[in-house]
């Protein structure tokens, strides 16, 4: 069976305000700030590659039954993953030697228009605000867009079918703190081998999930 290399540029659209939290409130002083990083002297919002790979792997596990793949574990703990050798581990990798054939890049956004919202917690029994439960969270607003790359190396057709199905499942996917995103593939900038597109399932998925 042929092996393929693919490069997919993913476009993420924020449908419900999104916070991928960080530890240090640099500018906003929010209790839960956005994750940021300095790149060449300029502060940017940073969506780690591990966050994106995490939601992709979870999505793949969810749809694996549809495409006839048997997944043995939904665990994330590295010690528990060591003992697992299933399809997902062979595609996405596992600790101590299970090399991932999927490489996911981080996303950066300009630290421009962010929103800081104030939240409270309501007591279930009294229906009033819990004392002291007032906190602020920094968000990327609805309508924002960002991009990331997912690169597959040495993939078989079954892997590509699974990956595209997983990306399709990311429509209105939960990410970070109760954020929702919509994901598609930027067709013109991505690379999907012609040989792979001859497969009927890959071709159909590609036509739906790429724009």
């Amino acid at each position, binding site marked *: 069976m042929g092996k393929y290399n693919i490069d997919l540029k993913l476009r993420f659209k924020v449908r419900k305000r999104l916070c991928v939290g960080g530890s240090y409130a640099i500018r906003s002083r929010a209790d839960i700030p956005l994750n940021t990083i*300095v790149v060449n002297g300029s502060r940017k919002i940073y969506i*780690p590659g591990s966050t*994106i790979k995490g939601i992709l792997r979870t999505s793949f596990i969810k749809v694996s039954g549809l495409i006839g793949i048997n997944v043995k574990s939904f*665990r*994330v703990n590295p010690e528990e993953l060591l003992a697992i050798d299933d399809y997902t581990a062979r595609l996405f990798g596992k600790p101590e030697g299970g090399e991932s054939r999927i490489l996911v*890049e981080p996303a950066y956004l300009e630290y421009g228009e962010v929103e800081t919202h104030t939240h409270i917690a309501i007591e279930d029994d009294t229906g009033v605000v819990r004392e002291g439960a007032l906190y602020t969270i920094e968000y990327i607003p609805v309508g924002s867009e960002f991009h990331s790359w997912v690169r597959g190396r040495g993939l078989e057709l079954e892997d590509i079918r699974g990956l595209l199905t997983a990306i399709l499942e990311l429509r209105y996917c939960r990410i970070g703190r109760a954020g929702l995103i919509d994901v598609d593939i930027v067709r013109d900038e991505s690379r999907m081998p012609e040989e792979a597109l001859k497969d009927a399932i890959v071709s159909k998925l590609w036509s739906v999930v790429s724009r």
Partner: protein
Amino acid sequence: MTIYRIEIELLSPMIISHPQPGRVLRGEYRYIPSTTIKGAILSMLYREYGASVHEESLNPRICIHPGYPIFDGYEARYAHPLIYKCKVCRDGENIIVDKSILDPDGLGRFNLERLEPPYKCGRGHIYAISPLKNTLLILRDGVYHPVEVETTSLDSIGINRYLGSTEHGMLYTYIVVAPGVKYGSMIYDPDDRLEGYGLTEGTHRINIGRGISRGLGLARLRVERHDEYLSERVKEIMEYLELMGEYIILRAKSPLSPYLGLRSQPWDLEGFIGHDIGGGILIPNGPPLKVRGYSSYTNQPKLSIMAYPPGTLVFYKTGDRMDRVAEKLARMELGGFYPPYNIGLNLMEVYTDANRIRL
């Protein structure tokens, strides 16, 4: 034979980790070890072009130098043991080089057994001198300046796939090199293997260090052939020999471990260089360190060895003609001074900083 000049610009945070307990992962960041760069480049060539890089693993012939960070166009180096700082002087004015290594008379009087750091600086501040350990320096306008690689801290958690909440016990902190940092290095390819593997001049995308499938260590690699390198370097070394007479100081760029051990002194070079050269006296730049590695081919840790750290100085004296010695030294700088070769050890350079240091 091809010599390349390469520049690695980080596009995402990078971590080249050390073994450590607990969940705080930090790593080496002041330089990128040769073997790390070699692994990253060969992995890229294998993944992107299907290159048969196994022959290089079994019979290493390509020598890749350590990557040192670039600041304002200057490539940094570790401070060697004869550079000090004055704790009282202001930044930019407080770096002191032991002058005895900058001229032949001084070196003639230099006595390793009676090595005494200076007790006062040029401005007269007494007993305020300390060595510069693990400090990176650039030599700009004849003066050394300390520099720091930009690092940052990343916190990471695991998310339970059933509940969507934080997984218990999965909180990690990474101390990483920040995106935007640039490192410079060189590749010496005597058999032109890399061209056969698909490496071309221009820009490539590589992944370095840990966590590459999760977006860490993404970098832009710029490759440029440097056909004039040898002739330019021979000229610099000749200038150095004219200044220093018969004395040669070599500074370690990589860890030093001739024949995979900490050899006793003196370190003989005559057999390798083929000219009249004696000495081989070492001033280590700190205690021996353990050099570890990991093979992405076998998925096993590599044998760890003890080595002298980068920045270590080795002193020699030659009675031979300068032009012949300069040419040989320039070639040995490329491929290494002692075996084993081409595995990221025993790379030294002639201390041509002496040509430019302002006294």
